[in-house]
């Protein structure tokens, strides 16, 4: 699948400079830089424990950052002014890993919540908008169900409807395909593509699903060991011959076998591999 590439001159909507996150003495992210332009689908990828989820949490201000500067839609993040931050947050949407729906509210109420908080709409219009958003993710029938009554895929779609409730300019998704069957995952990918194509939305997706990356990514940033391994348009990054990237796409993640010996080798019953 090919997509129109984000033009290099398009506006920078996410700018991360020197983002460092530490948990205790453990540096999870080490001076990460990242730039996302208007209208592109950017995939943040990496193995588990690489720091990709922390990168997303750091950008969104959900984890304490040691240092670094973040600007979303030209506005600085991490301003101590809660009001300003709240206003910026209204311009972005976030889809959490398991939807993060409020368990005490129905699907419809979940989607209505940001509208009720930030938009003074007449009740009828608000209800109509909720139904529109739910129809957009194919959940019109589930308006009055509680999150506990939904399947994993439905929860994610409901979470997406809520993230889109305020018509955000930018969407962040944390592992949208995790725990979904390939078909549901592909539907979600198509939904994300539609958002980009029809609403010119910028999307940042954290994922490690190869099928999903191939389907949606315009550009990617690969994180490993808390550092950026590669960043750039999909084709360019893959053409550079970076070992970690090639391994990821070839699905041949080598285990750290160099340090491992078979028991037979240990007792000198088989020749040691690679003369190690």
């Amino acid at each position, binding site marked *: 699948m090919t997509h129109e590439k984000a033009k290099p001159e398009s506006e920078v909507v996410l700018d991360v400079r020197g983002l460092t996150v530490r948990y205790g003495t453990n540096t999870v992210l080490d001076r990460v830089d990242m730039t996302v332009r208007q209208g592109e689908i950017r995939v943040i990828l990496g193995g588990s424990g690489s720091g990709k989820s922390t990168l997303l949490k750091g950008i969104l201000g959900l984890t304490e950052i040691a240092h670094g500067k973040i600007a979303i839609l030209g506005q600085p993040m991490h301003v101590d002014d809660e009001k300003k931050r709240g206003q910026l*947050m209204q311009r972005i949407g976030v889809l*959490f890993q*398991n939807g993060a729906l409020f368990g005490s509210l129905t699907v419809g109420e979940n989607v209505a919540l940001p509208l009720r908080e930030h938009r003074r709409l007449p009740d009828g219009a608000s209800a109509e908008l909720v139904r529109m958003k739910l129809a957009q993710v194919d959940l019109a029938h589930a308006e009055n169900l509680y999150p506990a009554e939904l399947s994993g895929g439905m929860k994610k779609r409901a979470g997406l409807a809520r993230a889109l409730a305020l018509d955000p300019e930018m969407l962040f998704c944390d592992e949208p395909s995790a725990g979904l069957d390939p078909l549901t995952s592909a539907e979600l990918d198509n939904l994300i593509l539609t958002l980009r194509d029809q609403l010119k939305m910028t999307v940042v997706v954290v994922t490690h699903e190869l099928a999903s990356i191939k389907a949606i990514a315009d550009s990617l940033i690969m994180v490993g060991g808390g550092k950026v391994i590669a960043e750039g348009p999909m084709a360019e990054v893959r053409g550079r011959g970076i070992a970690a990237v090639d391994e990821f796409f070839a699905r041949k993640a080598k285990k750290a076998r160099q*340090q491992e*010996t*078979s*028991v037979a080798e240990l007792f000198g*019953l*088989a020749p040691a591999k690679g003369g190690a």
Partner: protein
Amino acid sequence: MLPPILWGGYLRTEVQTAHATSTQPQLTLTDSPQSTARARTLVLVGVLDARAAGTLARQVRKKLPAKKSKLILDLTGVTAIDNAGTATLVDLWRLGHARHFAVELTGVQPAVLTALKQFHVTVALPKPVVVPGFFEDFGTGVWGAIEALGRFTVLASDTTVGAVQSLFTPGRMRWAAYFRESSLMGSQALGIVGLITFLIGLTLAFQSAYQLRQFGAAIYVAALTAISMVREMGPLITAILVAGRSGSSITSEVATMKVGEEIDAMQVMGIPFVDFIAVPKVLAMVTMVPLLTILADFLGILGGWIVGMVYLDIAPKPYLQKTIDALVTKDLVTGLFKSVVFAWGIALIGLYHGAGVRGGAQEVGKATTASVVSAIFFIIVADSIFSIIFYVVMA
């Protein structure tokens, strides 16, 4: 020769050889007559599996080979080996490595060799965890406590300021949430609080009557019950019950929201946690607990009254008169003031423990327990301090 069978995730390779006694599963171990001081040979016959592992390890450790000598394991008679057996061999190799003797295997059957080839180990062991020394441990503990106190102070001041502000700007207040919480914490607790404090009043009257009757002062049961209920037992028992009922539910609710990323979701939707969750809970708690305390005072006195009438033969009217005479406004006011402080503490401790959860679902239970324990601790300590302030300093 049978192919290796993967059975229940448990790799076991079976082979039949010339001296195999495949019907005999147990491993027999014998010291070979060829053993010398330099090289000890053990002859193994049978299946080297989990059951045999212990025997082998014990046998070797009983007579450890000397330094720079060899331990030869003759595996000619070993027909099969499983992962536990392989691990035992590796363990022996490591023992040899540490104690400077070599471990050699001879007569390895092809099937056993296949199994040994399939099992991979890391020669270098992971670094042992460094156990912090006393001072490091102590310092980390103190620093952790200071940090925790800091986080609690931030939450407590944000919430308290938010609560006071929303009282003056009713438009900002989440009234629906407030009424829902009030119903959960207040009206649904009426039964349990009423019953328990009634029984406490009854017991207090009984126990004091037993003593006071000896002096013919049975009528003072009325005063004693009334004062202890209104000053101490009413606020204290109510607060402890509410801590167990509602404090725990605040923690588990908030912790579950935290684990399910709902709190994060609120933050990115620009909905402040303090306004949306914390303030309604704290305000509901602070208004409901004093009301429950008033109920507790009444029912405790009622319990005493019944004991007075039934057990002490005191007429109902003199008993009530004595009760009213004994109580002063200060008793009621200090009691209610205490219950407000208790309520504030229970709600904030519940919120603090809930919001501090990191990790998975098992943390929710731990946080709930910690919340109830620290809330009750807070109640008792605050009560002692108030007793000193009200009845020693301000006496």
